[in-house]
């Protein structure tokens, strides 16, 4: 279990992470979500004992990150931002080094190295020098290093950055496969990744925790959640007819689509289909929206920015 209490980090006057509180149970894939410079990486650096917090602390499986750093390091596999690696070594030599620092020697170390090379499909480059590898391979070597000891906690800073769509899929599958007993924290600014991968998402901006929920619950906050979009031969007529319905709160016409937003009374989708068959529209497309994460993300992060600027003006 990870428990963070009042985790705070300053860089001079700048507050990078501001009073972060959360607990994470095993079996969770937690996504840190936030704009660039939000404090995601700094939080991860503190959890992995690279940076000491300015105030507050965190415990990982009972070990304090400040007073018991070595025990924490043994429990945590870490992929730092940008996946830094010893460029002059071969993939094989680098992974042997990683296995060595995790306490594996001889045959056991060789077995571990073989295992992660297979798992991340690095076989074809194992003798190659790391600096000659493509970005995607480098990222996977960084991941291989992080999981080599099969640690109970994995902290991965942008694990799919720089990968092509197939590789992204593959890495996501790998993370999902490992997720059942581990605590996995990933940071990302790719919103679809949160939906595809995480069982819990925390939205962080300007160092503050703004939302902490399941991706589904976050999606439900979107004004698009349960909205109905359709495309007909006469968009304007459709829009005005829809706006008469008691189930509809608002109608929007954009890019050849009419979107009706729900109110709290009644089943919007059923009402729209009923209306369209009564009116005899030529419907070429009809869909129930599931909510848009980017929409929620924008709302939450902008709300905070406005709040802060109005506070600043009042002061």
């Amino acid at each position, binding site marked *: 279990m990870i428990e963070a209490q009042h985790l705070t980090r300053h860089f001079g006057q700048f507050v990078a992470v501001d009073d972060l509180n959360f607990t994470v149970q095993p079996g969770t894939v937690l996504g840190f979500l936030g704009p660039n410079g939000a404090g995601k990486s700094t939080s991860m*650096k503190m959890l*992995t*004992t*690279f*940076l*000491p917090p300015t105030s507050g602390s965190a415990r990982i499986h009972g070990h304090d990150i400040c007073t018991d750093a*070595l025990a924490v*390091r*043994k429990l*945590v596999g*870490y992929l*730092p*931002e*940008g996946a*830094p*690696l*010893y*460029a*002059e*070594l071969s993939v094989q*030599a680098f992974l042997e*080094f*990683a296995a*060595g*620092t*995790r*306490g594996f020697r001889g045959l056991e170390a060789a077995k571990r190295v073989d295992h992660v090379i297979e798992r991340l499909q690095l076989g074809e480059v194992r003798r190659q*020098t790391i600096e000659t590898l493509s970005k995607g391979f480098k990222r996977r070597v960084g991941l291989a*290093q992080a999981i080599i000891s099969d640690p109970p906690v994995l902290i991965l800073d942008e694990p799919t950055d720089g990968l092509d769509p197939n590789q992204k899929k593959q890495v996501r599958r790998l993370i999902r496969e490992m997720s059942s007993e581990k605590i996995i924290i990933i940071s990302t600014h790719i919103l679809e990744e949160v939906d595809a991968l995480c069982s819990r998402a925390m939205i962080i901006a300007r160092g503050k925790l703004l939302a902490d929920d399941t991706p589904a619950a976050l999606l439900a906050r979107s004004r698009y959640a349960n909205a109905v979009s359709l495309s007909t031969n006469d968009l304007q007529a459709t829009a005005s007819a829809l706006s008469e319905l008691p189930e509809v709160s608002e109608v929007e016409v954009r890019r050849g689509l009419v979107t009706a937003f729900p109110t709290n009374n009644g089943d919007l989708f059923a009402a729209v289909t009923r209306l369209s068959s009564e009116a005899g529209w030529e419907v070429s497309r009809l869909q129930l929206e599931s909510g848009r994460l980017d929409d929620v993300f924008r709302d939450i992060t902008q709300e905070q920015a406005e709040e802060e600027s109005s506070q600043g003006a009042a002061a």
Partner: protein
Amino acid sequence: MIIRWLQGNFSVILRRELSSYFATPVAYVFIVIFLIMANAFTFYLGGFYEREVADLQPFFQFHPWLYLFLVPAIGMRLWAEERKSGTIELLLTLPVTTRQAVLAKFLAAWLFIGLALVLTVPLWITVNILGQPDNGTILAGYLGSWLMAGGFLAISACLSAATRNQVIAFILSVVVCFLFLLSGLPLVLDVFRGWLPQMAVDAIANLSFLSHFNSISRGVVDLRDLLYFLLVIGFWLLANRIVLEMKKV
């Protein structure tokens, strides 16, 4: 205790560091340049043949000057490179202590310089063919030279930890090494003479690498001279560790 260290992560980092030297041209360039320059100094400036004395004094007397530039060139990358490439974050979040990392990186570089020194053994053999040198003195010379290189290296390692720029690390290291080398000479002492008590000025004079090295390389292996270099190394490595911790806060 020592055995546990040798089996532990200390030796894993040590081996990785050493393999990095030989995975890049650094090792070969350093060794070749060191051997060429050491021999050129010995034969041309030192007058190895003309002296008609069977000893290695002309070889050892130029080591302080050789090290002044070559050792900071090795030391400058120790931490600055890790910081620049971001691997410092990888290294210091692995299950290793900062002390292990500092000592292992230092020892790897020190052993590497030791290897370059060992490769000058043909000169020792030559002297033995040409005459009957005092081999005890020569051995002491090698020991003193290696210890002095360690002193320079510890200074360079510490200053390398203070910056992510290797050029800055190099220049700072050369300047500090130069001050330590010459602290017995008026050039340095005159700066302090006006405003420090005589005792402090004497203490600074005693910090000179040159005087301690010269007495060892003349064959006078005084425990105080050995202790001096070990203390210098210990001091700068401790400072290295503190710089690393301070940089995080």
